[in-house]
């Protein structure tokens, strides 16, 4: 038990150090890197929680696949939503249609 406890509380200390780091870095003007650093540190914290606290390091391959599937589908969700919003422009309307009035609806 004491070995497991050592791991758990070492990870707790690391998580608090990461929390202090990300909060401190938010006050430094790093431009767009502020967001990148914040997300990278959050991901590292989540990874520590998943591997140690949620015992993924001791879990079977199938459980790891299930955990990975949740992440994969999240990436699909964020990726496709982002691709959609990144490529939204005013609809392209040919000049010919703009010049002439459309027939009135009946």
């Amino acid at each position: 038990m004491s070995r497991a406890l050592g791991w758990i509380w070492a990870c707790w200390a690391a998580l608090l150090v990461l929390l202090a780091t990300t909060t401190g870095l938010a006050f430094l003007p790093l431009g767009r890197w502020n967001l990148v650093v914040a997300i990278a540190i959050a991901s590292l914290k989540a990874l520590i929680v998943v591997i140690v606290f949620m015992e993924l390091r001791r879990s079977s391959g199938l459980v790891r696949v299930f955990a990975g599937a949740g992440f994969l589908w999240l990436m699909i969700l964020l990726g496709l939503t982002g691709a959609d919003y990144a490529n939204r422009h005013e609809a392209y309307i040919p000049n010919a249609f703009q010049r002439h009035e459309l027939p009135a609806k009946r």
Partner: protein
Amino acid sequence: MSEASPAFQYATLSQQREAATLGMWAFLATEVLFFGALIAAYSAYRTAWPAEIAAAARHTRVALGAINTAVLLTSSAFMATAVAAEEADRRRPLVLCLLATAVLGLSFIGIKGYEYWLEYREGLVPALNFDFGRYGGIGELFFLFYFFATGLHAVHLTIGIVMVLVLAARIGAGRPPRPPVLRMVGLYWHFVDIVWIFLFPLIYLPGRTG
């Protein structure tokens, strides 16, 4: 606790634990997408109006947010310790760890409620008293996200606190649940922690440099 027998449909306790763990992770994957949709909406807002979102995020209390993150991370460490104590068959530390987890969870809710109160006083609550002239339309959009995301997180945490307290009461009374139950509640608790790990930088950290 260790001499408990598996439920009738399982051959062994380890088989039961494996099945329960798999089911819990499948449930957590749906929860990832549930909160993921909110975060996708946030990303769309933030890409479209980066300056306005950053300006709105400055109205959140970063000190309270950071303290709350530390509180939740500590509660997760106690939850993991509780699982280790169950494995080592030590009832007293197990109950104490569960109580510590629940108390820290309740502290989180208390600090969050205090933040909500401060935000209410500053006219930052959409649909109740949002000060449109002062914070603008995009500010309202940010605070809609803020109250939805933190509110849903608080609901999840409250469910977790209730489960942890019930577990502590049952184990304290000498009627522990079947072995995988505590572990499964632990998985849920850590998941709620992870949601907050991502909400914290998205809500509290933008716009702190200006």
